[in-house]
C-alpha cells in the first residue's frame, strides 16, 4: 500500500494555524450581510422570475431596499411585511415593485408575530423542499450504488443549454459520473443571476435555475437508463455565491464549486464580500448535502507548480476550516489540486505523485478533486493525451475522489464530442489497468516522495503560521497568496456589504445553523 510518512507534528501545527486564521472572522459572519445573501433569502422565500427587461426580481427588491437605506433588518422582514400588507405572494410583490413603483419600505409594519409566523412557514416550505431533494439523491445512490473512486468528471461547454444536454447525455452513457456545465466566461462578475433557459454565452452558458432544472432532468433520465446516478455540478463562485448555491439546492445539483478565496484572488472580488458570501453559500451546500469543490488548481496555473505547491496545501487547509465553520462535513469537501508540473522536468511524475499523496493523506475523508494538466497542454493533442494518461494513472493509484478529466484539445477549443469520449476512454483504460496496483507497492523509506511531501507540508505550515500572526486580510493585501495583492477595501462588490441592524433577521440561516449543529 502506498503510504507517506507524514510529519504528524507539522500536520497538527498547520491545522491549528488554519483554524486560528479562519476563526477570526466571527465579527464578519455575525455582524454583516451582503446583497447576494439577501437575494438568496428572497429566493428561499419563493421569489423567482424577472422583469421584461431581464432584471431578476430578487434584484428589484434588494435594489429598492438599498436605495431606501432599508437593508438593515434584512430582506426577509421587509418582503414578509409587504406580503402581509398586500395579501400577495412574494413574486407578485416584487413585480409590483418593478412595474408599479410599489415602495415596500413605506408600508406600515405588521405585528411582529405575524411576520415571524409567515417567515416560519416559508422556511419550513423551502427547507422541506431542499431536504426532499437531498433524500432523493441519497435514495438514488442507494438504489444504483455509490459513485466510483475516482469519479469521472467531464465538462460540457457548448454555450447552449439544449446542446449541452445532448453532450452531457452522451458523456454519461460513456461512463461520466459527474457533469459540469461550464458558465459563460463573464458570469462571475455579474451581481445578479440571469433568469430562464439560455442558449448564449462564451465558453459556456449561464448558470440559471432553469438551466439547472433542464440538465438535472436529462441526467435523471440517463441515470435510470444506465442504472448509475449521474451527478451534476456548477459554480457557486463570483458575486452570487449563495444565490447559485440555493438554486443548486432547489434543483438537486450534487456538487458545487465553492472556494473560500478564489473570487478574491482570481476575480478581484472584495475580500470581505467573498468571505461573507462563501460562509452562507456553504451553509446552504451543507444543508442540501451538496459536495463542495475548491479551486486550488488556480494557484498552479498562475505560478510554478513546484515552487508554489505549498500554496495549494495552505489553501486546502483554509478551505477545510472555513467549510467546517459552515457545517460542511469532511466527506463533502472536494478540496482541489492539480497535475501542472512542467513535463520537461526530470522526475516530474515523482513530484506529482508526492503532491497527490500529500493531499489524499492530509484529508483522508475528503473526495479530493484532482485537476488535469492545462498549463503545458498545447496544440499538440497527442502529447496532451499522453499527459492526461499519466494524470489518470496517479488519480487511480492514489485514490483521488474526483478526476476532472483532461481533454487532448485543452488550449484549443471547448471539448468536441469526440474529445470528451477519448478522454473517458483514456481514464477508463488507466483506471482498470492500475486498479489495485497500489496494494502491491510501498515507497522506499525516506525516499524522495516522502521528503518532497514533507517539504511541501513544512512550507505550508510555516506560511500558515505567518498568515495566522499577520491576519488573512493583511496577508492578502500584501500579495502573499498567488502573488496577487488584494486590499481589504479593494475589488468588486464591497458596496454590496452592509452591517446588520440589531433586529436583523435571516430565518433560513438561523434554522440551518440549528439543524447543522453550528
Amino acid at each position, binding site marked *: 500500500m502506498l503510504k507517506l510518512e507524514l510529519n504528524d507534528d507539522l500536520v497538527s501545527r498547520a491545522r491549528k494555524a488554519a483554524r486560528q486564521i479562519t476563526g477570526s472572522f466571527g465579527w464578519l459572519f455575525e455582524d454583516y450581510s451582503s446583497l447576494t445573501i439577501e437575494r438568496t433569502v428572497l429566493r428561499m422565500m419563493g421569489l423567482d422570475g424577472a422583469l421584461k427587461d431581464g432584471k431578476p426580481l430578487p434584484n428589484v427588491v434588494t435594489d429598492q431596499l438599498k436605495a431606501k437605506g432599508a437593508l438593515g433588518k434584512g430582506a426577509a422582514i421587509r418582503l414578509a411585511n409587504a406580503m402581509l400588507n398586500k395579501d400577495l405572494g412574494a413574486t407578485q410583490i416584487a413585480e409590483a415593485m418593478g412595474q408599479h413603483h410599489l415602495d415596500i419600505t413605506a408600508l406600515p409594519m405588521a405585528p411582529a408575530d405575524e411576520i415571524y409566523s409567515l417567515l416560519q412557514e416559508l422556511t419550513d416550505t423551502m427547507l422541506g423542499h431542499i431536504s426532499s431533494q437531498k433524500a432523493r439523491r441519497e435514495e438514488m445512490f442507494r438504489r444504483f450504488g455509490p459513485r466510483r473512486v475516482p469519479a469521472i468528471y467531464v465538462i460540457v461547454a457548448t*454555450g447552449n443549454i439544449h446542446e449541452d444536454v*445532448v*453532450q452531457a*447525455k*452522451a458523456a454519461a*452513457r*460513456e461512463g461520466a459520473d459527474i457533469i459540469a456545465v461550464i458558465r*459563460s*466566461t*463573464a458570469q*462571475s*462578475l455579474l451581481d445578479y443571476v440571469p433568469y430562464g433557459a439560455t442558449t448564449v454565452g*462564451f*465558453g459556456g452558458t449561464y448558470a440559471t435555475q432553469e438551466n439547472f432544472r433542464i440538465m438535472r432532468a436529462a441526467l435523471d433520465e440517463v441515470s435510470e437508463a444506465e442504472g448509475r446516478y449521474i451527478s451534476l455540478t456548477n459554480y457557486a463562485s463570483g458575486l452570487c455565491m449563495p444565490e447559485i448555491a440555493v438554486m443548486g439546492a432547489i434543483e438537486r445539483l450534487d456538487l458545487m464549486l465553492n472556494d473560500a478565496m478564489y473570487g478574491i484572488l*482570481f*476575480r*478581484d472580488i472584495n475580500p470581505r464580500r467573498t468571505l461573507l458570501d462563501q460562509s452562507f453559500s456553504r451553509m446552504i451546500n451543507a444543508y442540501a448535502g451538496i459536495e463542495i469543490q475548491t479551486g486550488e488548481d488556480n494557484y498552479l*496555473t*498562475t*505560478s*510554478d507548480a513546484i515552487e508554489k505547491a505549498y500554496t495549494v496545501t495552505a489553501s486546502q487547509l483554509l478551505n477545510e476550516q472555513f467549510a467546517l465553520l459552515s457545517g460542511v462535513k469532511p466527506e463533502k469537501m472536494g478540496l482541489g489540486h492539480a497535475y501542472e508540473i*512542467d513535463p520537461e522536468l526530470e522526475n516530474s511524475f515523482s513530484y506529482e505523485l508526492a503532491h497527490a499523496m500529500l493531499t489524499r493523506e492530509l484529508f483522508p475523508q475528503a473526495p479530493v478533486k484532482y485537476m488535469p494538466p492545462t*498549463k503545458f497542454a*498545447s*496544440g499538440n493533442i497527442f502529447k496532451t493525451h499522453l499527459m492526461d494518461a499519466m494524470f489518470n494513472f496517479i488519480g487511480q493509484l492514489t485514490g483521488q475522489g474526483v478526476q476532472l478529466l483532461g481533454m487532448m484539445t485543452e*488550449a*484549443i*477549443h*471547448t471539448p*468536441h*464530442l*469526440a474529445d470528451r*469520449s*477519448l478522454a473517458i*476512454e483514456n481514464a477508463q483504460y488507466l483506471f482498470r489497468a492500475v486498479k489495485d496496483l497500489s496494494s502491491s507497492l510501498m515507497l522506499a523509506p525516506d525516499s524522495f516522495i516522502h521528503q518532497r511531501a514533507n517539504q511541501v507540508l513544512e512550507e505550508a505550515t510555516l506560511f500558515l503560521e505567518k498568515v495566522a500572526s499577520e491576519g488573512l486580510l493583511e496577508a492578502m493585501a500584501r500579495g502573499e497568496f498567488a*502573488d496577487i495583492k488584494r486590499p481589504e477595501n479593494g475589488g468588486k462588490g464591497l458596496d454590496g456589504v452592509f452591517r446588520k441592524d440589531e433586529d436583523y433577521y435571516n430565518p433560513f440561516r438561523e434554522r440551518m445553523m440549528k439543524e447543522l449543529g453550528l
Partner: protein
Amino acid sequence: MKKQLIRPYGDTSGDGKLQLSFSLPVSADAHGKEAARLLLRQIGLDDIEITGMRNLNEGFTHFIAYAVTSAGVDPDSIKVKVVETPVMDMEATDAYIKERIGRELTVVGACIESDAHTVGIDAIMNMKGYNHRYGLERYQGFNAVNMGAQVLSEDLLAKARELKADAILVSQVVTQKNIHIKNLTRLIELAEAERLRDKMLFICGGPRISHELAIELGYDAGFGTGSYSTDVASYIAITMAERLARKAK
C-alpha cells in the same frame, strides 16, 4: 523545369497521406462508415481508409481515417506577415533600451472585456514569466503594469493615458464565436475615438492570434502560440527606438 509542389508526406515522398478525425451524427455501423467515406470522397480525397469507428452515443459516431490528397502547394504562393524584428534576450533588450531610448518604456497589459483567462498576459508580463523567460515586470527597461482579467476597454485606455504608456498589450484567450475579434475591434475603435491609437503601440496576443490578423484588426503587431516575453519585449524596444529616431529627424 516543373516546380515541386508541397504535398503531405506519410512514409513516401509525395504520397499525399492525411490523418483525419471527425464525428458524424450517424450510427456506428456499416451505414455510418459509408457516410464517413462519402464525406471524405466529397472533400476530394482518395484511397480512403476508415481505420477507427467509435460509438459516441446519442446518435453520434467518431471516425478516424487515412486518405490521400492530390493537392499540393506552390511554394511561391506562400505569403505570410510575421513580426520581423529580431529577438533579443532580457539583458540585451534592457541594454538596447538604455542605449537607444534612455528611459523606461511603459507597457500596460490586460485581458479585456469578457475574457477571464490571464494565463497569456501573465506569461508575458509577470515577473516569473514562462518557460525560462522572465516577464516584462522583471526587465529594467520596462515599467510593466498588468491590469489582469476582465478589464473594460475604457479602463485599459484610461490607464494607458494616465501612465502615458508606450504600448498596450491585450490578451485574448477565449475565442468561442469569435469573441476575441469583437473585443479587439472594440478596443481599437475606442482608441481611435479617443485619439490614442497613434500615441502608443497596440499589440495583441493569444492562441488564435496571428500577426496578420492583428494588422487586419488595426493593431501594430500580434503574437500567437509559441510567443514568449522575449519576442514581445524585443519588438516593443526596437519599434519604439525606430519611432523615436524617426521623430528626431
